[in-house]
């Protein structure tokens, strides 16, 4: 192949073993080829290549100082030693220095046994008291628990910069950064203000990449325990699509294990009165969003229409493109639809006062914790004194509940959802992967508009983990241009191209996290080395696509019998009056410069 010839290879020796790699590769990459994994606490491929943590140091023959393997490029004839006494001692000392400021409440720390710093401390037999200090963290080390979705505890921060890098490079909001310098350096927001006052979109990617417990999801499990213990509460729970593709990881199962049946079984054992499926609500989302899209095609716009399932994306649009709110689908997210239907349709069906129904959702996402507090989620229907969804917990919190209650998750027998709201089409299941919402919508929109059965049900062009996927489909004689985009950084590229007139689309699916919900901020934290080596969202997404293709009889939202029944007996027509009242929403333009909260602060000063 021509390109292979054009790439120069370099031969070097690592621990005396010869290895050939492409020019420009780092020592870390070369070492991986001979089966050596060099540790790192800061490195994230492309996003955070700054050589900050110094636990990857190696000896390079002829060089006076140790080199950072994550950054140091290989060269012809180079000789590298990655496991000498000097290397081990240097790494150990560097870990000990990191521990000197670290508040080590490891016994009950939520990241214990899954903490990258702890792992290294064990591997290098670090003496945690060698540079012991009673002052943990640095200036600005106060705990920030102002947001609905996460807690920042700088007494556990090692300044690896991963959170700052992902917030800026992928999530494109840069609401946190390194403030001050030297000993006073700390991660925080502008003017040392709480995160809640910034244009944070609650995506939780900072939590997902944090090597320690400096950033973690807000733990709302106690609210769930309380509800389960309350005899007056009728407690129902439902997992999002991606949950069944990732909770197994918290119990030692390989990444990409389908645990849908075990999740349902665990929920029953925890004592939930009913176990439903958010994927059913995803099918209803398609009915509403699809109808809205068809309507826009008839009316001629406004295009592009954006999907509205992802609350991080919704908030990003509100902050950065408030003039494009009209392009947004007015449809609530599957979680939003689920919550509303539980407190209206389902409450009516079982004759229970919605006040006494306690709705819990399991989400791979921290932004969903914010979403349930949005105005329209608490006051859109007749009753205003209770929220649609009472608590949202992430897969990590859910796994914690299972562990606390002593349930042996891995050996649970698979169980089925309660059928009233527990049957979903394949289209609903694939919502958890980037491109899934688009594919689900296209399946329904094509059949409705063409008036005949689809010959090809897989819309493979919009699948996969690339940040931007584009395709053109012919539906009812019309060329429909679509895109599926993940991460705000990528959607900014797309929107800016649309505004410059270089691109035009009819329909764009946007997800706030790379890979979609299967890469969400509420996922189990995966060590950095695995994140760098594996395509984790892809492995998780395969679970959802396998569920979809595994049930060929039900792959389209509009064929879901539960959905049909709800429209027939309760909602009426998709996009009709009742649907609009209950299942659609409004968005608010928000300002970044400055946010309202920051302006309040400035006015006070």
């Amino acid at each position: 192949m021509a390109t292979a010839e054009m790439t120069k290879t370099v031969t070097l020796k690592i621990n005396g073993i010869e290895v050939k790699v492409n020019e420009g590769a780092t020592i870390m990459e070369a070492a991986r080829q001979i089966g050596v994994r060099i540790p790192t606490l800061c490195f994230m491929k492309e996003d955070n290549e700054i050589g900050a943590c110094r636990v990857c140091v190696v000896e390079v023959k002829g060089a006076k100082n140790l080199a950072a393997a994550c950054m140091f490029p290989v060269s012809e004839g180079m000789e590298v030693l990655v496991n000498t006494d000097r290397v081990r001692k240097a790494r150990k000392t560097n870990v000990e220095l990191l521990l000197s400021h670290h508040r080590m409440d490891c016994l009950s720390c939520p990241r214990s046994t899954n903490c990258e710093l702890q792992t290294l401390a064990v591997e290098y037999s670090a003496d945690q008291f060698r540079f012991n200090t009673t002052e943990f963290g640095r200036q600005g080390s106060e705990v920030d628990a102002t947001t609905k979705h996460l807690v920042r505890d700088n007494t556990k921060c090692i300044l690896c910069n991963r959170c700052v890098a992902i917030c800026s490079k992928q999530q494109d909001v840069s609401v946190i950064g390194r403030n001050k310098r030297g000993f006073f350096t700390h991660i925080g927001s502008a003017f040392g203000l709480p995160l809640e006052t910034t244009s944070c979109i609650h995506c939780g990617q900072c939590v997902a990449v944090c090597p320690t417990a400096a950033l973690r999801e807000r733990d709302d499990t106690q609210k769930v325990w309380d509800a389960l213990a309350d005899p007056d509460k009728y407690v129902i729970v439902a997992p999002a699509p991606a949950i069944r593709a990732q909770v197994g990881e918290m119990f030692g199962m390989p990444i990409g294990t389908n645990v849908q049946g075990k999740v349902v079984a665990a929920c029953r054992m925890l004592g939930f009165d009913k176990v439903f499926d958010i994927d059913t609500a995803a099918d209803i989302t398609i009915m509403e969003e699809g109808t809205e899209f068809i309507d826009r095609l008839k009316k001629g716009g406004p295009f592009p229409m954006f999907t509205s399932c992802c609350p991080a994306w919704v908030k990003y649009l509100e902050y950065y493109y408030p003039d494009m709110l009209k392009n947004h689908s007015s449809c609530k997210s599957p979680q939003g639809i689920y919550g509303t239907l539980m407190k209206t349709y389902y409450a009516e069906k079982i004759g229970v006062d919605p006040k006494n129904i306690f709705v819990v959702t399991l989400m791979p996402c921290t932004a969903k914790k914010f979403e349930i507090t949005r105005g329209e989620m608490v006051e859109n229907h007749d009753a205003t004194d209770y929220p649609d969804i009472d608590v949202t917990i992430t897969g990590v919190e859910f796994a914690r509940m299972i562990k606390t209650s002593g349930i042996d998750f891995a050996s649970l027998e698979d169980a089925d959802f309660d059928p009233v709201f527990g049957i979903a089409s394949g289209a609903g299941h694939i919502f958890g992967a980037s491109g899934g919402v688009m594919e689900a919508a296209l399946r329904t929109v094509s059949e409705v508009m063409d008036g005949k059965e689809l010959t090809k049900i897989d819309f493979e062009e919009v699948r996969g983990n690339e940040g931007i996927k584009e395709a053109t489909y012919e539906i009812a004689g019309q060329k429909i241009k679509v895109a599926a985009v993940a991460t705000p950084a990528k959607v900014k590229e797309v929107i800016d191209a649309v505004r410059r007139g270089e691109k035009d689309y009819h329909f764009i699916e946007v997800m706030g996290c790379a890979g979609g919900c299967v890469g969400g901020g509420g996922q189990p934290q995966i060590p950095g080395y695995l994140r760098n080596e594996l395509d984790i969202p892809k492995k998780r997404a395969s679970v959802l696509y396998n569920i979809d293709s595994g049930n060929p009889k039900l792959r389209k939202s509009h064929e879901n019998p539960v959905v049909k029944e709800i429209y027939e007996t309760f909602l009426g027509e998709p996009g009709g009056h009742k649907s609009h009242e209950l299942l659609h929403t409004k968005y608010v333009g928000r300002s970044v410069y400055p946010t309202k909260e920051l302006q309040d602060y400035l006015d006070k000063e």
Partner: protein
Amino acid sequence: MATKAPVFTAEQFERLDGIIEKYKEVKGSLIGVLQGAQEVFGYLPPEVQVKIAEKLDLPIEQVYSTSTFYSQFFLTPKGKYKINICMGTACYVKGAGAVLDQFARQLGIKPGECTEDMMFSLDGCRCIGVCGLAPVLTINEDVHGKIYSDDVAGVLVQYPKSE
């Protein structure tokens, strides 16, 4: 904080606009803009940093991260007389710490702050390179050498409170 934020004039903001306009299209010009803004306002108050972020289309955090990284940028107002006590090694071993404390006591402010009448601001600074005069300090452009804590009152009276 003993410091009261001064009220800024429209003319100052016009000058800021001019500086931003000049640098707007130049990539990596944030430091230059911050320097210019500090010349206009004397320091970098939050609303000025927000304005710079907005006009340069940068995240506010990036501006704040930069303004708090470099010691040349001030986030609190400075007085008519800017007192800088050298904290270099030579000055420090000869008692610069006690000198700083004495100024703080007599002015009733902490290092980094400014007196309420906006006359004096007090800071410790890095080595200014005249170790022969240690402990040394500067007040605006004046250099005062061999100043010990007993000499502080004598230095302050040289700077009349009004004029």
